[in-house]
């Protein structure tokens, strides 16, 4: 279970970071018009947070389900510590953006 959880968090953190950094096309929602579309670069009031979350959650759940079913000899600590490194990278990326660069 810990391997599957670690793999799920790894996939979530990676997909969440890449979706934003590489401007992957995701669902975007315009709160002014209530319209949902797909876009790489939201404009105006459009929000891509829901789309990023959906993409990352799908990747995380899929990865956890896949890893949970596969027999694995990988030590339980490997996916967990990898997940922490990826989450730390995400946090550093967003802190870097907070600084306005």
């Amino acid at each position, binding site marked *: *279970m810990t391997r599957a*959880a670690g793999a799920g968090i790894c996939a*979530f953190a990676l997909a969440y970071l890449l979706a934003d950094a590489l401007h992957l096309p995701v669902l975007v929602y315009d*709160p002014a018009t209530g319209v949902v579309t797909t876009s790489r670069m939201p404009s105006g009031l459009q929000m891509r947070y829901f789309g990023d979350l959906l993409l990352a959650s799908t990747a995380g759940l899929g990865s956890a389900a896949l890893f949970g079913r596969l027999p694995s000899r990988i030590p339980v600590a490997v996916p*967990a510590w990898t997940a*922490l490194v990826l*989450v730390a990278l995400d946090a550093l990326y967003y802190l870097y*953006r*907070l600084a306005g660069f």
Partner: protein
Amino acid sequence: MIDRALLLAHAVLGFAALFAGTHHAAYAVLSALERPRLRALRRFMWIAPAAMVAQAICGLAIYPAYRLRVRAMDFDLNAPALVRLFELKEHLAALAVALVIGASLAGGCDRSRQARWPIAALSCAGAAFLWAAALIGLYVTARHPL
């Protein structure tokens, strides 16, 4: 009116998630230190994820109203630093959801000794992100509630 009710629910459920995540982290560390708290870890296996998902649903429900009434009408014009701070909070909260749910489910199901420290580390990271998101959320809401 509904948005303010949802904001209150988001705050209350957010604190429930925060304390559930923090308790889980404390019990996970105790287990890693050879003082296992199996009943508590089993209890928080569902309490922490349920509180996290419920507060996240409330937060997502009011996000469009924040975007229109707070960000577009105030922060974008008067306080752009708060826009970036709130975005950091949203990203930390998203990562915390994954960490807390993953660590809680693993802590409730996995009894192996070698899993204890990895679960404790994931749970502590989730709790730390939750605390940061909660404090930023309180600060931003104090500046301009819905």
